[in-house]
């Protein structure tokens, strides 16, 4: 019985994941595809791999927040005077309702061409049912406050970061009298930095749920591994770049700039992959966060969640994203590549680094953010640094719209679905919980 309910919720989660893969992932590769550094097919494959990797390796943190950070099941159990089993059932129903409402709202907005962030939808949905299930105090308003703040801060941080990175790129490569010579040093430095940061963000405090306890992956070992890997890749890139740029020092400056841009093409391909990685880490939670809660409720029968998010849940979300990407995302990626013609690799690198940094930091802080909004902020930062010919400020309106519309809408929908679900399915769920209580093997 519990299995059936889990499968049902898993299907909902897969549906959300499919949507994310189909619509959202293309944005993470936009810089590589737009600057023609990767073909659409290459981008789809790379995005699939990186999204999946990000989802399973780093996705647990934000997923943890969605499953128990916004609405803590313990608090619900405490505030309703019911048995633990029934409380667990209520939470399971609510999470499923939140998932369903997010999926419905996503489709609805896409049909109407309205702005929508999957993150906003899920968070709104979860908070929504929580308020109705156990009253206002059930929602962890401290965490909610942090999350909402991160929604404002992440695009701004992306903007500032990209601005700084692009200015640095300018100062050390683009503005030089000899851009080609400068690029020989610039490219390896960038590769080092990006590799080290992404590796560290992944390894910090270990990959226990994947790789077990290993000195390589914890504490100081993690830092050293990151720096080491960064140095290794930087050296490799230095060799390749030198080979590519050999003999090009004497060309006129204008031509040199063009050559440097082409040298940056593999770099932006790599940084877009890191954005896809970060995207997977952040967005997988939107599809399987509630699922993780439901799984726990129905399998463990208790509201106390101390275990980490199960690997298979993250893998399921990752797989859903990849399937969505492969089936529908190809077309979206193609459109993105066709419509963005202004972006050159150097600009893409700056925006990607900023996006990856901000998203991964938020992931480690367990804060779910909108990856698209962060990227928008980053691209805007490059524009502010005078790197782009014309940037559409009107896009801001879409972002504000998502803040104002999506969260309440998803919350309301989730509440309605939750009330309906509780009325119809409470006994069913409670039974399922009771029958598995005590059989849980962490």
């Amino acid at each position: 019985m519990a299995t059936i309910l889990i499968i049902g919720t898993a299907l909902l989660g897969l549906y959300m994941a499919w949507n994310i893969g189909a619509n959202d992932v293309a944005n993470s590769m936009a810089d590589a595809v737009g600057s023609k550094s990767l073909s659409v097919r290459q981008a789809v494959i790379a995005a699939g791999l990186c999204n999946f990797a990000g989802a399973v390796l780093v996705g647990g943190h934000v997923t943890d927040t969605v499953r128990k950070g916004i609405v803590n099941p313990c608090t619900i159990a405490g505030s309703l005077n019911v048995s633990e089993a029934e409380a667990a059932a209520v939470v399971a129903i609510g999470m499923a309702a939140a998932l369903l409402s997010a999926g419905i709202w996503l489709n609805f907005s896409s049909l109407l061409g309205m702005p929508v962030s999957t993150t906003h939808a899920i968070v709104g949905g979860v908070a929504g049912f929580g308020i109705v299930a156990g009253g206002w105090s059930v929602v962890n308003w401290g965490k909610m406050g942090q999350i909402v703040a991160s929604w404002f801060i992440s695009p701004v941080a992306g903007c500032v970061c990209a601005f700084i990175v692009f200015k640095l790129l300018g100062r050390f490569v683009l503005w030089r009298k000899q851009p080609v010579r400068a690029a020989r040093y610039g490219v390896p430095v960038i590769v080092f930095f990006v590799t080290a940061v992404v590796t560290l963000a992944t390894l910090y405090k270990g990959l226990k749920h994947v790789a077990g306890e290993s000195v390589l992956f914890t504490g100081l070992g993690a830092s050293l591994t990151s720096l080491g890997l960064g140095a290794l890749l930087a050296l490799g890139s230095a060799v390749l770049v030198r080979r590519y740029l050999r003999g090009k020092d004497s060309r006129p400056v204008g031509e040199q700039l063009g050559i440097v841009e082409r040298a940056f093409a593999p770099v932006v391909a790599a940084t877009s992959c890191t954005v896809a990685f970060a995207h997977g880490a952040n967005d997988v939670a939107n599809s399987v966060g509630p699922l993780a809660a439901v799984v726990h409720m129905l399998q463990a029968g208790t509201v106390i969640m101390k275990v980490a998010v199960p690997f298979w849940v993250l893998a399921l979300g990752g797989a859903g994203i990849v399937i969505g990407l492969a089936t529908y995302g190809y077309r979206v990626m193609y459109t993105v590549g066709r419509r963005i013609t202004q972006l050159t690799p150097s600009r893409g690198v700056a925006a990607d680094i900023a996006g990856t940094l901000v998203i991964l930091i938020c992931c480690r802080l367990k804060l779910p953010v909108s990856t698209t909004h962060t990227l928008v902020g980053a691209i805007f930062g490059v524009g502010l640094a005078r790197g782009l010919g014309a940037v559409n400020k009107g896009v801001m309106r879409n972002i504000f719209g998502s803040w104002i519309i999506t969260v309440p809408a998803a919350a309301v929908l989730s509440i309605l679905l939750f009330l309906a679900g509780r009325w119809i399915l409470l006994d069913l769920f409670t039974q399922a919980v009771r029958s598995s209580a005590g059989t849980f093997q962490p």
Partner: protein
Amino acid sequence: MGLIQEMFGQSPFGPLFEHTKKVHECVKQIRPLMEALVNEDFDEIHRLQDTVSKLEYEADEFKHEIREQLPRRYFLPVDRAELDRFLKSQDRIADAVEDFAVILLIRETRIHPDLREDFSTFVDQVLRVSTTLMKAAEEMLNLAESAFGGAQAESVLSLVSGLGEEEWKADRMQREISKKMYKLEKDLDPMTLLFYEKILRSLSGVANHAENTGDILRTMIVKG
């Protein structure tokens, strides 16, 4: 989720350079026009004036297109007002060339033999001013690529200073011709003198507007 796609508008710098090229094509007509005037080939002047008119019209079309592609909601790496002024100033160059062509057209003015060489040299200098502006504007795309900073910007700024110098030389030449022409005033009827004045004024207008355009380009680069 087309947010990222919607962010990018068309960069105006390619079209801006196209406008400069078109205007320069227009300016290049001043030499054949002056030659035709010296050779008293008034049919040729008629034909050339047609060409200038067409080129000036085409430049106008570019101008309108550029303006249409830059609605307010687009944020630019240069000051929008300066970009507009650049466009307008460049437009005035073409207008001055058209003025020159029309002046030659409406009256069959004969150039005094003593002044022929001076007028030719003056035309060459004015053309030189416009060519220098072209060189600076040519760098527009490289400027955009280097985000208006660094070595690229510096080389354009130095070209623009060179432009100021060339325009100053043109001004000086104009004064010399005027002095010479008034020394010959007994040999020339008042209408002819008037037309010499108009010719000089329109030609120096071309040089002046070119220099102004260069100045605005400098502001665009520096102010951002």
